[in-house]
């Protein structure tokens, strides 16, 4: 089993603004995501979950601490290098999806691969596979405004999963999905991680978080609790909460 850290947060903090109006969106977060591991992040609205994902994905820079992707401190990279890491190593499902309205589902999904230099035909074939994997293969040639919210969500997930991405960051990827479809999405993520990818998943749904190896809780920007990695069943006995 590989124990390589795909993502490592070291004492990460993020402050918005300055002085008396400063908002501590995150404080002193340390977290390691290993190859094959799926970690779920839970916490109330405003607790810093999206901020955490943005930092992990190099879309935002920490005020304190360091973010390492596959051992590389993102702060040491040039803009171009950072963009390359984001494109090749990271798949991102945003809370607001971010599908490009002028592109079809298949084109949206194929885009990151084409940017990687993959030939258009191959990128399209990969896109069709990724769409089929999340159950919307038949919608490949529709535009985003011709799909339901849940269908768009699955297209966004397909885009994050396409190609050899090793780190998938997903912010509420099941938000617009019904119970069964949401679960299917989690199965896809789980299978990807079992196949060696790593996932960081923000969700409000405990039932979805439970597919993760580990669930961490954020409150007011701080990590307040953690189920630990793959708890042995005895934990059920020793946890005081069951008394």
């Amino acid at each position, binding site marked *: *089993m590989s124990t390589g850290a795909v993502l490592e947060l070291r004492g990460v903090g993020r402050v918005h603004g300055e002085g*008396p*109006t*400063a*908002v*501590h*969106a995150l404080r002193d977060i340390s977290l390691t995501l290993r190859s*094959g*591991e799926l970690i779920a992040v839970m916490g*109330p*609205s*405003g*607790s810093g979950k999206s901020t955490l994902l943005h930092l992990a994905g190099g879309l935002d820079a920490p005020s304190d601490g360091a973010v390492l992707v596959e051992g590389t401190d993102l702060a040491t990279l040039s803009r171009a290098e950072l963009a390359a890491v984001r494109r090749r190593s990271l798949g991102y499902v945003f809370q607001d999806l971010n599908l490009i309205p002028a592109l079809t589902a298949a084109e949206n999904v194929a885009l990151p691969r084409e940017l990687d230099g993959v030939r258009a035909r191959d990128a399209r074939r990969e896109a069709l596979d990724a769409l089929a994997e999340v159950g919307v293969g038949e919608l490949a040639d529709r535009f985003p405004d011709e799909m339901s919210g849940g269908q768009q969500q699955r297209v966004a997930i397909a885009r994050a999963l396409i190609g050899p991405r090793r780190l998938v960051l997903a912010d509420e990827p099941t*938000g617009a999905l019904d119970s069964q479809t949401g679960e299917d999405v989690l*199965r896809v993520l*789980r299978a990807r991680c*079992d196949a060696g990818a790593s996932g960081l998943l923000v969700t*409000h*749904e*405990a*039932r979805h*978080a*439970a*597919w*993760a*190896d580990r*669930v961490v*809780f954020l409150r*007011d*920007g701080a990590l*307040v*609790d*953690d*189920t*630990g*990695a*793959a*708890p*042995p*069943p*005895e*934990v*059920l*006995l020793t*946890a*005081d*909460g*069951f*008394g």
Partner: protein
Amino acid sequence: MRSGDRNGADAGEVPQRVPRDAAARARLSGTAVPDMPRLTGHTAYAYLVAMSIRHGLLALLERSPMYGYQLRHEFERSTGATWPLNVGQVYTTLARLERDGLVEQTGESDEDGKVVYRLTDAGHAELTGWFATPLAGADRPRDELAIKVALALTTPGVDVRSVLQTQRTATLRHLQELTRLKAVADGSEDTAWLLVLDSMIFRAEAEVRWLDHSETRLARLAATQRPAGASGPSTAVSTDEPSDEAVRR
């Protein structure tokens, strides 16, 4: 390690963990589990069946009259052959059912003197009634957790928020465990087991939602009770408590 644990939910390790899991489950719901050591299969399925063994036997006899050992065999079969039911438990339950007039002996017996049982009309009515009647709130185990949290709120020196947090972490671990069992069972034909697992998963989820809701309620309460002068800039984030609508979109 992780994948090993996942596989651990497979048959190999289950006999070890199941009784413990069921015990934890029982403590969670505030009920006692009779004869725990005999439960060696399908976690809560066995546990739930144990709770309604009477109706389980009645349901089997509804199919056809049977010998006691046949009942035992069928019982095991319907729990995926993972719950070796104690034959003594079958006969004890049969004796009670007979006493209550719900089953009777047909008069047939084999060379060992074992007798055949069948359902009486009263037994049939009991079974039909059981399926037709929804469980009333009062039939469910009392909600020990709600009582515990309510007590924590009014007991000096107890931090309710940490009680809620500890419970949420524990319940989430339980939910992870159930989800692993489900992932293992997914491909199987064992629909009954999957239905029971789903039921337990949704229950645990409801508990987490209630814990989230309670935490938000307490945080808001704390915010309104905080003296006006005490809320400086440093509390800007924590006083900005989320609304329930925002938490549970």
